[in-house]
């Protein structure tokens, strides 16, 4: 990037037009299905406890309150609306993740998040397939379990392999002292990133389902073949991860336990504790309706539509020019 051109957008006029069309398509999709569009705060008091998600802290001061976080996802606020009886809702939102910049990442990006009351993960996957295939005009996704994907591409059974053997599998990429600092999920993430992901959704889109319970985040957990697995799914199209969905956890005490466990992991990795969002926990306590929800990266969906391999080509101004 030369000095003279730094003010210019990195996306072509055609990409900007396609972005507008994509947004209109998504809004039409939900209008047809009578899912209500909502807006929730991007700037809020609490961030998330997720160990691998860093929010952007905001130096805000108003009405006697100091500090806040740019949201990594509108999830907590949308669930508060659900608990208040909103019915099925969707939102197009700018979200923020500190430190994330690469060919598929920008610290600020556009997310489409929606919740369907009365749906489970299977029903929501059909919804996702309708939206994605309707826009991309691609084959409908097939379902592959996390376990089978790991077995196929990393030659590892994520539920059976010993910690020691799992660490050995990481030696192709990391030095022994680096591996020593990785926990079991960290090792699995490495294999997922480097061995598995590039192969997913090559021939036709693939839903990865049945994540280990340790990676459940905010999803319910069931026992399948003797192993606790999360009702969580991700969609991959041509090696690109597009969305992450859950059959939502509605158990407030379990939710609190997971937040506290997150904070313990944060401490172990030298990250500061995140205060728990009590308003969110109160909402879950009051009663989150049975629902499934999913967050879909709109910039990546546009990358697939336009066949680009770099997110900068679909963003008017990526982080370096923003």
């Amino acid at each position, binding site marked *: 990037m030369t000095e003279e051109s730094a003010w210019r957008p990195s996306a072509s006029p055609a990409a900007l037009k396609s972005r507008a069309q994509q947004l209109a398509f998504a809004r039409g999709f939900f209008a047809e299905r009578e899912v209500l569009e909502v807006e929730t705060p991007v700037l809020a008091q609490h961030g998330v406890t997720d160990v*691998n998600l860093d929010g952007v802290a905001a130096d805000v001061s108003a009405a006697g309150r100091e500090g806040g976080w740019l949201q990594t996802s509108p999830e907590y606020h949308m669930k508060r609306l659900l608990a208040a009886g909103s019915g099925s809702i969707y939102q197009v939102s700018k979200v923020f993740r*500190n430190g*994330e*910049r*690469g*060919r598929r990442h920008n610290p600020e990006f556009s997310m489409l998040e929606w919740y369907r009351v009365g749906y489970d993960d299977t029903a929501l996957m059909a919804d996702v397939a309708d939206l994605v295939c309707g826009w991309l005009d691609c084959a409908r996704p097939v379902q592959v379990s996390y376990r089978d994907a790991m077995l196929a591409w990393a030659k590892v059974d994520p539920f059976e392999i010993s910690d020691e053997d799992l660490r050995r599998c990481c030696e192709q*990429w990391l030095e022994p002292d680096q591996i020593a*600092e990785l926990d079991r999920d960290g090792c699995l*993430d490495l294999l997922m*990133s480097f061995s598995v992901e590039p192969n997913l959704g090559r021939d036709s889109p693939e839903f990865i389902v049945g994540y280990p319970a340790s990676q459940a985040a905010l999803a319910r957990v069931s026992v399948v073949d003797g192993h606790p697995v999360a009702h969580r799914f991700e969609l991959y199209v041509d090696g690109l991860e597009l969305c992450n969905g859950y059959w939502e956890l509605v158990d407030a005490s379990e939710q609190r336990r997971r937040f506290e466990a997150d904070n313990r992991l944060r401490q172990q990795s030298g990250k500061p504790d995140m205060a728990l969002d009590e308003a969110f926990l109160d909402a879950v306590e009051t009663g989150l309706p049975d629902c499934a929800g999913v967050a879909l990266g709109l910039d990546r969906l546009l990358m697939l539509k336009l066949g680009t391999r770099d997110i900068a080509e679909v963003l008017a101004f990526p982080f370096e020019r923003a």
Partner: protein
Amino acid sequence: MASYSTNEFRGGLKVLLDGDPCIMLENEFVKPGKGQAFNRVRLRNLMTNRVWDRTFKSGESLEAADVIDQDMEYLYTDGEFWHFMLTDGSFEQYPADAKAVGDTVKWLKEQDVYTVTLYNGAPLTVTPPNFVELEVVDTDPGMKGDTAQGGSKPATLSTGAVVNVPLFITIGEVLKVDTRSGDYVSRVKGG
């Protein structure tokens, strides 16, 4: 010593890896859904010129390498070292050994300015400007006539470099040469 964490990684960063100074060529951030983030980095070892691919976990850091590029004027060689002088008015001199000078030796002309990369204060590499102007000291006699006609011949330049030149070039002429490709570019008027 300064260090760079994965969030600061970018092309052009000079870091120490396994004790050697390296320049970062590419940095790719990868992260599965909700999982651990990694940086896949391609670096060139400035000591050996070898290219390394390495992976780092988000939050890891690398020590900064004390590597800086400086403009210096080439003075002379004593046979063992090639002596350069800073052009910033300090007249500070630096002796570069054969390893640091490398292939650039064939483009070294006294009083021309080169980029000298210093590592811990000593010359690590010497990079010539993209174009140099050098006199032809030996070549077959020039051919009169159509200067646009094809065909070339070797010419030896004052620094010892041999480049292919058009047939009309004669001894004593000054040529502009691209040091990256070693190609003849043009004659220089008034040379």
